[in-house]
């Protein structure tokens, strides 16, 4: 199932904390107060989860399909390459 990097915008900080009840993959350190009373948090959600949040009154901005940011499987290095770079 495809997942998306998103920014979830809540009407206020309390509504933001209520997101905990969903048990979704939201990134705690990204929680921020926005202009006015709004607050936001970033996360990694499926389309189904996004729909749930929208139905619950949250704004969800879709930033990117997750696989586009997965560099850790493609850009790898062997120990030999690490050694060679440092001449150890």
């Amino acid at each position, binding site marked *: 199932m495809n997942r998306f990097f998103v920014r979830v915008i809540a009407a206020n900080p309390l509504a933001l904390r209520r997101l905990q009840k969903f048990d979704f993959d939201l990134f705690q350190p990204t929680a921020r107060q926005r202009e006015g009373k709004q*607050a936001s*948090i970033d996360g990694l959600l499926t389309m189904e989860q996004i729909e749930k949040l929208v139905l619950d009154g949250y704004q969800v901005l879709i930033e990117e399909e997750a696989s586009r940011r997965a560099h850790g499987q493609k850009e790898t290095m062997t120990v030999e390459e690490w050694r060679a770079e440092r001449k150890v």
Partner: protein
Amino acid sequence: MAGYLSAAGIESVIQIIQGAYSDICQLIVLPEQSVEHRTCRALKIAKGGGTRTGVLFVGGAHARELINPDLLVNFAYNLCTAYTNGTGLTFGPKTYDAFTIKLIVEALDVFVFPLINPDGREYVQTVDAWWRKNRDLNPGLPCAGVDINRNYDFLWSSGIGTSSNSCSDIFKGSAAFSEPETRNVRSLLDNFPNIECMIDIHSFSQLILYPWGDDVSQTTDPSMNFRNPAFDGLRGNPGDSVYKEYIDAADLNRFIQVGNHMRDAISAVRGRLYTVEPSVLLYPTSGTAVDYGYSRHLVDATKRKVFSYTIETATEFQPVFSEALEVMKEVEAGLIEFCNRCLCPVESISSGTGLVARLDRMRQFRDRVMQAHPSGRRYMELFDFHSAEILSLTAADAKLRRMATGVLQKLADVVAPARGESRQIPSGLLKSTGDLFKVAAAKASPELKKALLTVQADLEFFKGQTAEGGLKRADAKLTRKKR
């Protein structure tokens, strides 16, 4: 091709660094294997022995945050190489000279545990790029994995910012320290009680976070704290006035000061401005390493206070590797700066002298007596702020070091006598302290010189007094100034 190392690669590189720099690197095999039976290793980087402050860096708790284990092995390698070659370290325009690197390796025990959660990393690089937890199969539960950074023993049972649902990314596990990965971190703190400084490195958001994570903090009501059951159920709602977590004012100040120094070092590399703030802000947590590290001395007074931080590196979990290299540079500068701020001149000056045996009693005087007086707290702040420069000056100048040792010996007789109560300060101690300040001020930066002159002016309050009596008189001066 440059890129991220595998879990096995990180473990190999740890051993390669130890082998290449065996005179300053000790391999620590952690007592427990990971859930999938991988051996976990850490490095202790230190030259020489004696009582020294320990600094602990851990990374790789959250599997998908790939950059940090690579960052930490590179940090360890760069530190060892620079020390061995007698050079400094350069991160873009930010430079630390050879003397600073020498001080760090010779006056601190630097512990680097780059990959707490090797099973998770392996899973991320081969199966699911966004896996966060460890790979505990959670027998009897529907999903695998425990969030390592919700499994520490800090308000674990409160459920604040954690989940009891095994399918959640913030599943806290079946009990505090139910996971071998968290127990390994605890074992480092238990087995190396000299650790006073710690950073748990995560991604992302460009943040430097300090305690607390469960609620907003306050400095006025010590009874409102995480150990007080009267407040159970009231924590975890930042913004309300019902509960605020107590933090000692001097500690809070130190967290902010040191955090700001790290921020400035990081920013000097390529202008990225990390934000220094408490962990909680809008979204509370419990069971985290940062709060566990700092709370240990409050739960058990025999444990050393650990100034613990979380750094959230980068702007994504797995940056393109060319960007990851830039992030590593800037954060490494922050880590060197952190080491610098953890150096203790008193420990360094005492090293190899009979004073070492009295350091604990001197620390008690610092924590119990100086801490209780506004003037004492002010002296400590000045000392902390200028500690790196004081270390440089005393290490580079044998005469100054001898003078400092002499003053410390006389001071120890007063504040940490072998038996009995604190004694009256002898006039000889005040004279040698004045002389020491005079010699140091001649070589100091304008800022340190100003601080030395300020404290020197206060010496008169201590004439014919015990140390505590002198602090009381200095307090009175501070109060008069405020009025």
